[in-house]
Structure formats: structure tokens, C-alpha cells
């Protein structure tokens, strides 16, 4: 009896026979509807090995686990999160050749390798409103324009908006938030609630990405959803991956990092993640992406700047919106 229980427990604890490569990933990435499963299949075909995704909130989990972490590779940390992750001291250099990236920003980070990116943007329904033509015009728009955003204290896209406002309006960011305030119908915990309110027709504009309309174009044949393009520029979120220094499978971890910028991996990103690949020949992009409105100017803080500014921009949000 006791041995039966022991066997059962062993089976529960180790679902795979060979030791898999443990990849920590955000929920959206590894879910059946994200890019994770296709990437897993492609990588496993090339290496005769196995990937095991562990999902959840990647950064707090790493910080909780510290050196006890079971992760070999971590994917899905964006540039605004990356500095805090770097400071855990858990990561080894990525050793990947990052030349030829199809991103609007130079990449010099030796720890994290980028795998996809997108501009933060306000998405609207072209049959319902005429969009403001600039960020400044958005602040001056009549108060009956209704916007849903995400909270910078709980959501990465919300934090990106706060950084975006700071980048555009600098010292006047608090004033800018105050000007935006009457139009902000609600501030949600995460992206899904806000986007749900948009698709339900409750708000005119929602904080999302310039690539969001691609889903509607390709999956639904609906070309009415568009991103408002602002000449001031759009804040860019780059998602990255890194390898854990203490991994007991360094070769496999490195092989996975090397796989990230290959065409095989990158071509899964557009329709798997509804975002832009870090390095992919534009000719290989799905057709629907050509219909997207994309900005000329990309704005970004590097990970150290973003980390240093975080408390400031959250305070601007609270002060500007809370009054």
C-alpha cells in the first residue's frame, strides 16, 4: 500500500520521463490560444527533448523562488520588468547574435533577448468615432469620448501607458493625466476587462496595441477596429527571454535561446501572439498585418530607465487621475 502511494506521488511529481526544459512563461503565452504550443512543437522536433511550460506571474515567482527556482529559461518579461528580473542575479548572458532585428529600437541588452514587440496604442471602432489625431488632441478631446485603460499598478500595459505619458509630456505628465481623467471611464486590473468593455461597445477607445486590429482583420474579417496613430510617437513594449545561470541543462537552455530568433520561431509570433516578431523578413508577415496603421516614431525607455521611473510615473497617474 505504502509503495503504491509512493509510486503515485512520484508519478504526480514528475509527469515526464526525461528531464524537460522548464520554461516559465506568462499564462497568455503558454495557453492553448497563445504561441507557446506551436513553439514547443517546433523546438521539440529539432532537439529530441521536451519543453515544460510553467505559467503564472513570472517575475514575482522568480523573486519568491530565488536560487531555488526550477526554471531553466524564462520567457515573457518585457523591458519594463526586465531590470527587476536582472537584479535577482539569477540570469546568465543570452549569447545570441541579435543583429538584423526588425525592431525600431537598438538592442544592447546582454541578458535578455527580444522575441516580439508592439506599440502601445488606443484602439477604436472606425464606424463609431473619428479618432484624435495626436496625443495632445486626445487630451483636448471632448469629455464625452469614453476611454478604458489599465491600472499601471497592476498591469504591464497600464504601466506602459504611464511611461508613454511621461515620455511625451515629461514634467507635465500629471497635468496630462488630469486632462485625460474626464474621458477615462474606468481603469481595469488587466487588459482583458478593458478590452471586453471595448468589444461590448461600452467605451469608444481602449488602451491596447497597434497590432490588436490584426486579430479582428485576420480571425474575424472585421476591418473596423483601428489603432489611433499619434505623431508624438508610441511607447514600445518589447518582450524578452533569458536563461537561468544555475540551470542543470545549460546546452539545452542555450539551444532554446538560439531558437528564439530563428524564422521558425518568429513566424509563429504574428498570429500566435498578435504582435510583431523581433526578427522576421517583412515579406514573410501574414497578409492582414499589411493593413495595420503603424506609427513612424517609436518611444521606449531601456530597462534601467523604466525601473528607475516606475514609482514616479505611478505617482503621476495617481495624482492626475485621483483628483
Amino acid at each position, binding site marked *: 500500500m505504502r509503495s503504491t502511494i509512493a509510486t503515485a506521488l512520484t508519478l*504526480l*511529481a*514528475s*509527469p515526464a520521463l526525461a528531464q524537460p526544459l522548464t520554461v516559465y512563461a506568462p*499564462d*497568455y503565452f*503558454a*495557453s*492553448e*490560444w*497563445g504561441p*507557446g504550443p506551436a513553439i514547443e512543437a517546433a523546438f521539440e522536433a529539432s532537439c529530441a527533448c521536451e519543453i*515544460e*511550460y510553467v*505559467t*503564472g*506571474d513570472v*517575475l*514575482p*515567482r522568480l*523573486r*519568491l*523562488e530565488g536560487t*531555488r527556482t*526550477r526554471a531553466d529559461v524564462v520567457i515573457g518579461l518585457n523591458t519594463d520588468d526586465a531590470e*527587476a528580473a536582472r537584479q535577482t542575479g539569477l540570469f546568465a548572458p543570452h549569447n545570441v547574435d541579435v543583429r538584423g532585428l526588425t525592431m525600431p529600437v537598438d538592442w544592447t541588452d546582454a541578458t535578455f533577448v527580444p522575441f516580439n514587440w508592439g506599440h502601445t496604442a488606443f484602439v477604436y471602432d472606425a464606424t463609431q468615432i473619428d479618432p484624435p489625431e495626436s496625443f495632445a488632441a486626445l487630451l483636448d478631446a471632448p469629455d464625452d469620448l*469614453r476611454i478604458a485603460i489599465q*491600472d499601471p*499598478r*497592476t498591469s504591464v500595459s497600464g*504601466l506602459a501607458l504611464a511611461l508613454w505619458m511621461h515620455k511625451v509630456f515629461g514634467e507635465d505628465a500629471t497635468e496630462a493625466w488630469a486632462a485625460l*481623467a474626464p474621458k*477615462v*471611464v*474606468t*481603469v*481595469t*486590473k*488587466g*487588459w*482583458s*476587462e478593458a478590452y*471586453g*468593455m471595448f*468589444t*461590448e*461597445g*461600452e*467605451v469608444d477607445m481602449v488602451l491596447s496595441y497597434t497590432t*490588436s486590429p490584426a*486579430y*479582428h482583420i485576420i*480571425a474575424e474579417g472585421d476591418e473596423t477596429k483601428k489603432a489611433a496613430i499619434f505623431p508624438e510617437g508610441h511607447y514600445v513594449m518589447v518582450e524578452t527571454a533569458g536563461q537561468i545561470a544555475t540551470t542543470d541543462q545549460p546546452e539545452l537552455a542555450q539551444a532554446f535561446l538560439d531558437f528564439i530568433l530563428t524564422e521558425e520561431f518568429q513566424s509563429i509570433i504574428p498570429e500566435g501572439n*498578435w504582435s510583431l516578431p523581433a526578427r522576421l523578413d517583412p515579406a514573410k508577415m501574414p497578409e492582414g498585418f499589411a493593413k495595420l496603421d503603424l506609427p513612424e516614431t517609436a518611444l521606449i525607455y531601456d530597462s534601467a530607465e523604466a525601473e528607475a521611473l*516606475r514609482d514616479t510615473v*505611478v505617482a503621476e*497617474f*495617481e495624482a492626475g*487621475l*485621483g483628483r
Partner: protein
Amino acid sequence: MVAGALLLPLVAVAWRAEGWGGLRVSDWGALWFTLWQAAVSAALSVLLAVPVARALARRRFPGRGAVVLLLGAPFILPVIVAVLGLVAVFGRSGVANTALGWLGVEPVSIYGWQGVILAHVFFNMPLGTRLILQGWLSLPGERLRLAASLGFDAGDTFRRLEWPMLRALVPGIFVVIFLICTTSFAVALALGGGPRATTVELAIYQAFRFDFDLSRAALLGALQLLIGGGAALLSLRLALPSGFGAGLDRVTPRWDSRGPGLRMQDGAAIGLACLFLLLPMALVLGGGVVHVAGLPGSVWLAALRSLLIALSAAILTTALAFVMALAVVTTRRGGWVEVAGTLSIAASPLVLGTGLYILLLPVANPVALALPVTAFVNVVLALPFALRALIPAMRDLHRDYGQLSASLGVTGFAWVRLVALPRLRRPAGFAAGLTAALAAGDLGVIALFASPDQATLPLVLYQLMGSYRMEDARAAAVLLVALSLGLFWLFERGGRHAAA
């Protein structure tokens, strides 16, 4: 044990915190908002629940069972579904504002403190109704008969029978709802309209997610538990025993409430409650029904996982609540057991989950234990509801049959089988059903722990929304509601049949 289950994770988080930071000024603002909105939400929920529960208790009409069942549904809805449903009714382009527009009235905004309270009443009035209805059904039929033969009208019945029952029940129910509202977070944010609607739980999330300030998270978690403890103690002092004496638990016709005025009053209470609670659900779920059959197999597997969690949580919680209720009634320090049991509702799910994670990490792979841990957390979180249902019944049982059992020497297992089970089946079935429904709908810690092949139905729902698949998400929500309500119905029906 429950106290340990609550405190250990908290201590674990604090221990990992390495040094103590203080609270911020904004945390005190969050505390104030948390407290007042919870008090108002709970008061309104209970006030509105009383007439509805009374109407349901004294009317018999076709479809009453279905109404009682469906009225329980909002309580188990995932937050995101409920929010979208409320917005569909009360939002800018919602049904309510459209109707007001026809009347030439300015649209009303749902966003702000009024939205937070509206949502909390939407979630918790059904719970209040169900718990108070349990109380009404526990009024001994013989008393109502006696009241009728003495010529009591509805007012007399209320003063002599119903008011003492409410007096005994309502403080506990108020506290339970108050505590649920204090740990609210995503709702408060989505309908609160901005940083003014910051609650303590949001501050905990922020401290944990972005600042990784575990000492602040633990401190705020402790603060939340303190509020809960205070409220629970207060409710114990306020609650008075009802003391009707024993009855035969038969459903009795209500001779006192046959007047047309009272009929209309009850009809209005039930009708308005149905409209308020069911319309948002119908609007958000209606579109999903046709897509249920087309859901991929993985969603059904997730539903199966949720079912297993729900069943194990229901059985464990009911057993635990039974033992605790017995302790509350029969031991001298029973009050503390009751406080501990109520307190767990005030435990921050995030602190609980994180603490368990820290505790498990050195000894096991928390990811492999995701499902058992989810079930365990749900046992802790559902216990207060189960206790609210079982303690009053156990108290009556002890008072009415305690001496008889003792004089006949019926103790131990025989007592459980012959005396307790037959008379507690109805509240126990209710407790098990409620726990199962709650556990099936709980997103909670699974999001912290799981690997993709362990996703539960609520998690899958969020995944679908996160990848733009709104239609499938609606369908998953329909499945979730059907699963939760189905479990609730089965357990409750089991309880009622056995009692008849």
C-alpha cells in the same frame, strides 16, 4: 487548524520579507475606502435580501425552485463576466440608460463608488437571500400554525417569529458579506473608475506584483485579518439566539400572508430581484449558449478539473464545518472557533496563495500540487459560508435534542447518524452545494501555481479573453455557470430529499 491555515501563510510571507517597511499614506486611504464601501455594500445587500427571502419563504409558485436556484448564480460568476454583465445593463449604452433615455432622463454613470456598491450588491444579495431563506425555512411549522390559530396577521408574525429569527441571523450574514467586500479588488477597480477606488487588496497586489515589498503585503494582509477579526467578534455580540423550540421541519402554508397587498409586495420583491440579478447574466451569457458545443476538448477537460476540485472542496468543507459547528455549540470556548471560521473570509487570497507557495517550495514542487492546493484554499475560503449555514441549525439541534440524546445515551457515531445527519441535511446540503459552486468558479491561486495542463475552467475563460476570443469566453462562462449551478442544485436537492 483553520487559524493555522490562515496565519502560517501570512507568517511565511512576512518571514520572507527581510525587514519591515511601514505602510504608505495611500494605504490608509485604501483602508478607509475598503471599509466604508464594504459596510454600505453589506448593509444594502442584507436590507434588500430580507424582503426577497421573505417572499420566497411564504410563496409557492410554479418555477419557484428554478428562481431560488438561479438567484444564487451571481455569487459564483467570475468577476470579469459579472462586470461585463452589469455594464451591459447599467453602462453607458446599457439597457437601463437606454430606457432612461426614452423617458428623457440624463444617463446615469455606473463608474465610481456607486458602481462598486452596485456590483457588490449584485454579487452578495443572492448570498444574503439564500442564507436568510435558510433561516426562514428553519422556523418551525408548528409555530406558524400556532400563530395562525391565534389570529396573527403578517405584522404579528413578523414581530413574534420572524424578527427574532432575523436578529439571530442577520449580524453574522452582514459580517460575512462585509468581509467578502473588503477583499474585493478587480470589481472595485473595473467599476470604481480609477485610483480613488483603491482597496487594500489592490495595495497588496501592487506590493506583491510590482514592488515585491513582501513586508508591506504581509502587513496589509494582517490588517485585513484584523478588520475581519474585529467584525467577527462584533457580530458574535450582536447576534441573539432565536429560541423557538423544536418543530418537525415541515413546510407550512402561511395563513398570515394571504392578503392581496402582501401578495403584490412579495411578487414585486421576487420580480425585481430576478430582473436585477438575471438580466445582466442573460445579456452576457445569452450569446455564449450557441457556442458551448463548439468549445475545444481542452475546455471540457478544464471543466472536469474544476468539477473534481469542487467535489473535494465540498466534501472537506462540509465535514470540517460540521465538526466546527459542533465545537461552537458544545464547548465553552466555541466563540473563538466561530471567529476563526468567519475570519478566513477576510484572508487575502493573494497572501494565502503566496504564503502556501513559500511554505511548499522547500518540500515539494508547488506546481505539481496546484490542484490540491486550489482545493485546500477553497475549503478555507468557503468555510465561513458553510458555518453560517450549519451553526444556527446545530445550535437548535443541540438545544432541542441535546438532553433527549443524552438521556437516551445516543452519542458518538450513532448520534451523528441518528440525530445530527437527518436534521442537518438541509443546511449541510446547502453548505456543500455553495462550496462546490464557489470552488468551481474560483480563479484564485490556480493562476499563481498552475502549469498549462492543469488549467481550470475559470483560468481557461481568462485565457480565452486574453487571446481576443470573446465568443468562446462567453461559451466557457455559460459552461462554468451551468457546472456551478448544477453542483449546487444536486447537493441542495440531496439535502432536501433526505429531509423530507
